[in-house]
């Protein structure tokens, strides 16, 4: 405990001295965050400095081993670091699918060479990754994917199409699920492979979404080349790696149900005003109170499910409860923010770009496994219902 207190004091001091002033407020959107990568241009000096300083401490990935660019912090220390960053309202120095998704999978399934090659550039923000899972005909039924990967002796050759690849047009490398055995059953012929996108065989085409933004792409592989040493885990056993990574993705997305930003009751009070201490719109007031209460229950539930997991109790499938509930909650929250914002929320580019965010949340219950798929998982793995 004493050690942890010392760590807290040192961390607080370091952050106060090293976190640039401009980095001490939340990001206003994806465009404002630091994603790194080969072609990254920093928005300002503060963003660059903040990343460099945190990289030097190993604090972009505080729990990863020091040899792979982390700081080797214990869970308790990492929690202290998070809470101290929150105290200063310090933003994350680096947003990255490499950190959130690929990293954990490599730490578990990668060879020492793969870890050295890929984890360090991820930690340093030098290589930006994207996720090549979904295909036009393989969405919820991901395991029916058909992108072909052939062994050409000294390399692999990949042909096929992925869709919904977030930020593919900005990424440097892609982790891809490919079919390496067309004879085997659905789940057993899949491999997990890492591909450098800087080659003529890989092209991307942005997809414009209802929110007006295009952060997603179609990704085409046309005799694309990958090294023999880039398969993660065993050949034809990529499904295991893919599933492990998905649990991390789900955790990340369900975190959105978390009471991010200003609680909506406060926002509505400011936007609509109070009458005798109550929100002037009494019907909306009820909906907001219900939403905030569900938000409290969600946060408490998340804490409980995590505590249970640490204590070796509960069931891993409870992650699906959080994914399902957290994303549905986030959609509800944004509906209410639109209600509260009134006509001012109905213009593009209004304060905090609320309409675009509202539209974007509609994908929360689709990406990373739809709500229906989460309910299927609960039915099967928790309630043990027949045929689920």
């Amino acid at each position: 405990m004493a050690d942890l207190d010392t760590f807290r004091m040192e961390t607080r001091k370091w952050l106060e001295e090293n976190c640039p002033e401009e980095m001490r407020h939340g990001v206003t959107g994806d465009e404002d965050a630091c994603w790194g990568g080969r072609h990254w241009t920093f928005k300002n000096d503060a963003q660059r400095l903040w990343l460099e300083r945190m990289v030097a401490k190993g604090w972009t990935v505080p729990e990863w081993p020091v040899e792979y660019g982390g700081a080797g912090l214990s869970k308790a220390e990492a929690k202290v670091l998070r809470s101290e960053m929150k105290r200063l309202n310090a933003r994350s120095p680096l947003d990255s699918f490499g950190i959130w998704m690929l990293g954990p999978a490599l730490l578990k399934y990668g060879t020492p060479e793969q870890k050295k090659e890929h984890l360090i550039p991820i930690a340093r923000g030098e290589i930006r990754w994207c996720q090549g899972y979904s295909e036009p005909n393989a969405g919820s039924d991901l395991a029916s994917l058909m992108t072909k990967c052939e062994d050409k002796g000294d390399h692999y050759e990949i042909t096929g199409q992925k869709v919904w690849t977030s930020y593919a047009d900005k990424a440097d490398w892609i982790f891809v699920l490919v079919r390496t055995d067309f004879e085997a059953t659905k789940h057993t012929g899949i491999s997990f492979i890492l591909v450098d996108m800087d080659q003529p065989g890989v092209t991307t085409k942005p997809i414009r979404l209802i929110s007006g933004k295009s952060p997603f792409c179609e990704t085409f592989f046309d005799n694309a080349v990958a090294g023999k040493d880039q398969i993660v885990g065993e050949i034809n056993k990529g499904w295991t790696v893919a599933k492990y990574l998905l649990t991390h993705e789900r955790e990340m997305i369900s975190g959105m149900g978390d009471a991010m930003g200003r609680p909506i009751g406060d926002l509505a009070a400011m936007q609509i005003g109070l009458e005798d201490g109550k929100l002037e719109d009494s019907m909306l007031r009820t909906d907001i109170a219900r939403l905030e209460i569900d938000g409290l229950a969600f946060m408490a539930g998340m804490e409980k499910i995590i505590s249970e997991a640490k204590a070796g109790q509960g069931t891993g499938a409870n992650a699906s409860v959080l994914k399902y509930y957290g994303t549905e909650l986030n959609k509800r929250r944004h509906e209410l923010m639109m209600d509260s914002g009134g006509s001012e929320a109905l213009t593009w580019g209004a304060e905090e770009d609320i309409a675009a965010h509202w539209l974007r949340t509609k994908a929360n219950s689709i990406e990373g496994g739809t709500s229906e798929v989460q309910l299927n998982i609960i039915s099967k793995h928790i309630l043990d219902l027949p045929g689920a």
Partner: protein
Amino acid sequence: MAMVLDEEQSMLRDAARGFLTDHAPVSQLRKLRDSGNEDKFDRATWAAMGEMGWAGVLVDEDHGGVDMGFQAAGLIAEEMGRTLTASPYLSTAMMGATALGAYGTTSQKETWLPKIATGEAIMAIAVDEGRKHRPQQVATTASKSGNGFKISGTKTFVADGGVAEQIIVTARTAGGEGEKEGISLFLVSADAAGITKTHHDMIDSRNSVTLSFDDVEVDGDAIIGEIDGGASPLNHILNAGRAGLAAEMSGSAQACLSMTVDYLKERKQFGKTIGEFQALQHRASHLYSEIELAKAVVMKALQGLDSAPEHASLMVAAAKAKLGQVAQLAAQESIQMHGGIGMTDEYDIGFYMKRIRVAEALYGDSHYQADIYAKLRGF
């Protein structure tokens, strides 16, 4: 605070579940109802609960209790919700013990806490006056008379009021109806002259009465807490009851889900087990998700009452608001997924649905709690 049970709490929960399943399952409530039992609870079962220390779960050791705190008290309530055990636990062990333990005079404590702890003295809380829970709408008056007071007025929906030995009554000693200031709490003997009880045939088959007070005389030392300053203690006492009811409803909701999931694996139609139908799988899984989160918010409310009761109101309101909705959803979904059999009196689900309805209304329904929540949040 950890969101998992410690060893002592797990043992208590297992012991409670074992005892209640064996000695006070739903069939006991059914029997009490069918036999027309006047008390509407089983005295032998209650005595056993007293012996096991449950009645004294919130009473300090100096007064003969086991002082295990609200989280433990909530676990017992939750298990009682699972089996629908009828008992004066909530009004006595949770609310009565809180009222006297936190605000009683030395002599009130010495007289009553040891008897509460053994289950010997049953308490009831008389707060509401109309059809809805409005604890500040107090028209009942306590006017000075000699050294004491004379209480007059009518109290509705008094849980366990028909069997209580002592009744905690709110009455106005100053201020106008609806005002927070001027409410006082009195400890009144249930057999005092001038009290008339009207028994109600409640849908949940439990004990509930309307009490009318007609110039009921009490001594000056019958006041609990400060004169005119009863509103804040009252809120604490009610919060103890609300958190207890939320925990109870959590247990009932879990029981409804578990009965339903069992039935989904058993009943066949169209040549299939009905649990194979995805429409039902999703309804059950949605209910499971709601209940998982509901359990967690109840835990937070109970922990809040243990660590800082003066700041617990927000979480208690959230918990009772949430559980009122989730437990009702559980009962409704449970009947729907059972089909016709769920509508029969022979089947137990109806008992759950009826008790949950009453628990939801008691000490403020889900709408009331959501309103309190919004007020505390400043909107």
